[in-house]
């Protein structure tokens, strides 16, 4: 039986605590809903982006005409309507103007109607691609016009056909998947394929089949089916999810980051709810004790308080949901331009149900344990305000285990994958355990301190109040700060690794195959500063006297020493390189030949300074000694070399020279024409369009990431604030006593400030340690990107945290400092 009046009274009697609890729960839910809602929409948007990048769900590639088995499988699927397909033939050809005066190596893409299934081919005329690309007409890249001096409507010899240039392509959705191209793009309709007379035995053609899947859920099954039919090693079946590309890795990392934020938010929300709950229950202890003295059974108030708390939790959840919705509406208005266009800021129905259920269950689970522990309590121990030794029986551990399992389940739900989920749970558990151990350690250390000043002593003693929550506050604060710091550090690192590797001055024009004899002339013709990279091909014969067995090396996962390496020579470090071992690139005190090695390759065979490597360069063996080990400070589009030799060692070896520069788009055609005319052997590769696509997507993602980071940081800070203020009642009493005994406001202020300083600084420093370690681990082992500690930003984080905690502490104690002690005294007495 439930006693409704009792429940209502319980809520209305301690309105303040109830309100804090409801707000805590609400805030947690707002954050959870906000982050999850966003994560869902952005996940969807990302997948859409990934799909656009490939123009299809399933992509099949081969360098030969498709095998009969695969063709049959494709036909079968097309017949059932499970997929829609479009074939593509990609190859180079030398196209000529109608008057045969000029020719150009072009990258042809012959496409069937339907291409692209996702994304759009943007034309200069803004017309629909499918309507422009019909038999007899072609769509060309702007360079085709500029380099051949043609205009729209002119005709071009392509193989055996004469085709009319109908439009200019500005953007090709699946461009980044074929990053480099030796010639500008020409789109041709499949209807003209026969007339071209270019695809034969003895032609080099990339056969591509794009598929759009009718039901996205069948994607993997269909892909597997096709893979089974495909000839292994020749016909490659990939989906937009599995296709490897630089962006794909970024997408993966980004999605992982999102779920990381989700988990951290869950953690923060849990901490928020728990501290609000603790404050509420502490307030209720007296009531419970009194009820027991008048004969209430343990199960009576367990039952009733669970209802009270669930009612409160439910209202918190509902407020949270409303808040989350409002937040999204407001953010949608504020950030309309800022967010990617296809991210919708609407919470879905399942999301609401999910959050609602989550809120209630979390509150119920959290409240059951403390209530269960209270039921076995002797009332007198509460009256006496004694330290309550918590009775921990089997049930206690069972419930604790259930709580743990529940959160593990939540994590799996959030991550939706077993292994990362497991890592998360282990990681978070470890985080809390390590935090607890560190907190304990610091507290013990502090307890031993003998301080000269009264203020300092009082502040320190405040941390060790009996029945004080210092330990749990410290753990909660450290854990949540560690989560926030980690999010921030990871964001910085993702940004540095991916976004910043596409700076506005990233090179967009690559010149390959410059001969040493052309170097000087080329430099003059180029007319701008550029780093020239001589390239010498070579293999490794032996490392540290041990022969490299190429066959065995090949078995190695990742990079191996059995392959051909591109060696270079120079006597200086590049901008983005630093030496990690050794004093300088080369040792002037060594008479031997030397080499500088990149750290990533040195790791393969544990090479160090002074070790010897034998190279074979064009049949000539060359033994060199490692003089330094380098690393790259950031990932970027700039070329790098594993092995750098002193100039005099390799200058005479067979080599070509390579350079990459940034050229403004309008100046490209002229430069390209000049160079190819003057140095016909030099290939010029223009990656402007590709880089533009990359940069556009990455810029959008970086905004989203930044926004997310900010959002979760703000929410986290609010949760921390609410949990700090939830514990303020314990401190008020002390402030009043100090005042009665004749302490001035300044004294009380100082004691509190110092106490908060201890708390804030300790937890911030611990959190920084934890988050640096955690972020480093995640960057290296999950993201596979170099890690930067962002020292100054980290210090700033600590400083900001300490200031914030100080400020909050001060604000919550202002009323006591200004007011007369008596009113507070009465509150205490009438407990």
């Amino acid at each position, binding site marked *: 039986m439930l006693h409704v009046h009792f429940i209502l009274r319980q809520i209305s009697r301690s309105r303040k605590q109830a309100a804090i609890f409801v707000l805590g729960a609400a805030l947690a839910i707002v954050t959870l809903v906000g982050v999850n809602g966003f994560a869902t929409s952005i996940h969807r948007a990302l997948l859409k982006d990934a799909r656009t990048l490939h123009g299809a769900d399933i992509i099949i590639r081969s360098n030969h005409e498709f095998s009969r088995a695969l063709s049959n499988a494709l036909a079968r699927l097309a017949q059932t309507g499970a997929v829609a397909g479009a074939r593509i033939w990609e190859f*180079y050809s030398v196209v000529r103007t109608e008057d045969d005066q000029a*020719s150009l190596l072009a990258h042809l893409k012959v496409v069937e109607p339907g291409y692209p299934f996702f994304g759009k081919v943007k034309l200069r005329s803004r017309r629909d691609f499918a309507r422009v690309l019909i038999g007899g007409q072609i769509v060309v890249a702007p360079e085709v016009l500029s380099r051949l001096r043609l205009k729209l409507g002119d005709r071009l010899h392509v193989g055996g056909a004469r085709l009319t240039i109908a439009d200019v392509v500005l953007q090709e959705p699946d461009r980044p998947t074929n990053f480099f191209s030796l010639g500008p793009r020409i789109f041709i309709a499949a209807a003209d394929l026969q007339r071209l007379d270019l695809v*034969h035995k003895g*032609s080099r053609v990339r056969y591509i089949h794009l598929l759009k899947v009718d039901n996205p859920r069948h994607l993997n099954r269909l892909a597997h089916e096709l893979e089974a039919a495909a000839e292994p090693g020749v016909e490659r079946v990939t989906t937009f999810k599995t296709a490897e590309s*630089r962006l794909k890795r*970024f997408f993966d990392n980004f999605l992982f980051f999102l779920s990381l934020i989700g988990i951290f938010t869950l953690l923060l929300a849990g901490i928020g709810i728990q501290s609000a709950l603790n404050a509420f229950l502490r307030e209720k202890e007296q009531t419970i004790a009194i009820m027991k003295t008048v004969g209430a059974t343990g199960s009576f108030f367990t039952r009733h308080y669970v209802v009270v708390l669930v009612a409160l939790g439910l209202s918190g959840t509902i407020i949270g949901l409303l808040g989350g919705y409002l937040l999204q509406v407001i953010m949608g208005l504020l950030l309309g331009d800022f967010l990617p266009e296809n991210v919708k800021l609407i919470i879905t129905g399942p999301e609401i149900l999910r959050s609602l259920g989550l809120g209630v269950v979390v509150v119920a689970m959290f409240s059951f344990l403390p209530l269960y522990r209270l039921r076995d309590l002797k009332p007198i121990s509460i009256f006496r305000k004694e330290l309550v030794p918590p009775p921990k029986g089997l049930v206690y551990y069972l419930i604790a285990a259930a709580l743990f399992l529940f959160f593990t389940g939540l994590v799996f739900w959030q991550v939706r994958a077993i292994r990362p989920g497991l890592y998360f749970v282990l990681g978070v558990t470890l985080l809390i355990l390590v935090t607890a151990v560190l907190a304990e350690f610091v507290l013990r250390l502090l307890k031993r301190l003998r301080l000269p000043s009264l203020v300092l002593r009082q502040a320190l003693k405040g941390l060790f109040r009996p029945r004080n929550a210092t330990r749990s506050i410290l753990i909660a604060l450290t854990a949540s700060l560690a989560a926030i710091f980690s999010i921030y550090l990871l964001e910085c690192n993702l940004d540095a690794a991916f976004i910043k*590797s596409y700076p506005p001055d990233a090179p967009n024009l690559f010149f390959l195959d410059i*001969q040493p004899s052309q170097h000087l002339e080329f430099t003059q013709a180029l007319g701008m500063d550029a780093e020239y990279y001589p390239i010498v091909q070579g293999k490794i014969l032996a490392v540290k006297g041990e022969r490299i067995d190429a066959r065995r090396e090949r078995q190695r996962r990742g990079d191996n020493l059995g392959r051909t390496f591109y060696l270079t020579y120079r006597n200086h470090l590049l901008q983005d390189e630093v030496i990690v071992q050794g004093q300088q690139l080369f040792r002037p005190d060594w008479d031997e030949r030397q080499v500088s090695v990149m750290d990533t390759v040195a790791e393969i065979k544990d090479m160090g300074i002074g070790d010897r490597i034998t190279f074979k360069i*064009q049949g000539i063996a060359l033994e060199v000694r490692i003089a330094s080990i380098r690393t790259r400070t950031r990932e*970027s589009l700039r070329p790098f070399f594993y092995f750098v030799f002193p100039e005099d060692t390799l200058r005479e070896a067979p080599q070509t020279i390579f350079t990459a520069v940034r050229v403004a788009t309008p100046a490209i055609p002229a430069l390209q024409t000049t160079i190819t005319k003057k140095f016909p052997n030099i290939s010029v590769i223009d990656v402007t369009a590709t880089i533009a696509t990359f940069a556009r997507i990455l810029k959008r993602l970086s905004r989203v990431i930044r926004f997310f980071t900010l959002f979760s940081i703000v929410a986290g800070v609010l949760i921390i604030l609410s949990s700090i203020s939830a514990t303020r009642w314990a401190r008020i009493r002390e402030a009043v006593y100090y005042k009665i005994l004749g302490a001035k406001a300044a004294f009380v202020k100082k004691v509190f400030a110092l106490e908060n300083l201890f708390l804030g600084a300790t937890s911030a420093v611990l959190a920084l340690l934890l988050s640096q370690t955690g972020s480093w681990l995640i960057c290296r082992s999950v993201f596979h990107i170099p890690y930067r500690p962002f020292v100054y930003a980290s210090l700033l984080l600590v400083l900001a945290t300490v200031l914030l905690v100080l400020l909050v502490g001060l604000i919550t104690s202002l009323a006591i400092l200004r007011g007369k002690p008596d009113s507070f005294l009465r509150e205490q007495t009438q407990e």
Partner: protein
Amino acid sequence: MNKPAARFAVTVLVLMALFPAGCQQDAGPEIEDHRPLDDGTIVAIGDSLTEGYEVAPEEAYPAELERKLRRQGYSYRVINAGISGETSSGVLSRIQWTLKLKPDIVILVTGANDGLRGIDPQLTATNIDAIVRQLKARNITVIVGGMQMVRNLGKDYTGAFARIYPAVAQKRGVILIPFFLAGVAGNPQLNQADGIHPTAEGYRVIVANIFPYVVEALKEHQAKIKKN
């Protein structure tokens, strides 16, 4: 391990060398040891077709050729001087370096990368001519491996390209293999998945194809020795 930038750089460089170098080449001891066998040294100059992209070093054509020569009783060493991705301009640039190997006979198979990059056949012709001239000047017996371009480049281009080799051979009076990849090009069984690079089996076919021309060169070389 899977560093994106590393992959990127590899891509750049791979592109530079249109045919990326194989992953499992070993330096056979015969390459380290440059002392000629009794009869003389053959240097195979060329690109990935010579170097042996994605096949074991002993499966590439120079090694296969040396074995076949030995079986037939010729004690010639065949040195693999192939550089993946190299164009005819590259060969011309390094010819002095290659001459350090002191070849008696050179098999020159270059130009494929020129064609794949759409480089004007005129330039390729000039380069090959200059290379042959320099070799001849050193009294080296030269075999020029003829090459044909993939048909997707268009008849005009492939026609002009195919004419380069007979023209140079005729002009300089050197031995010509009409088409180095005869019977191999375009056959999926003899080529790797990329459709361009021969398999070990493909190289055996190639060696069988070119063997008569090599024997012709050996005779020319031995005649030269006798003259001296």
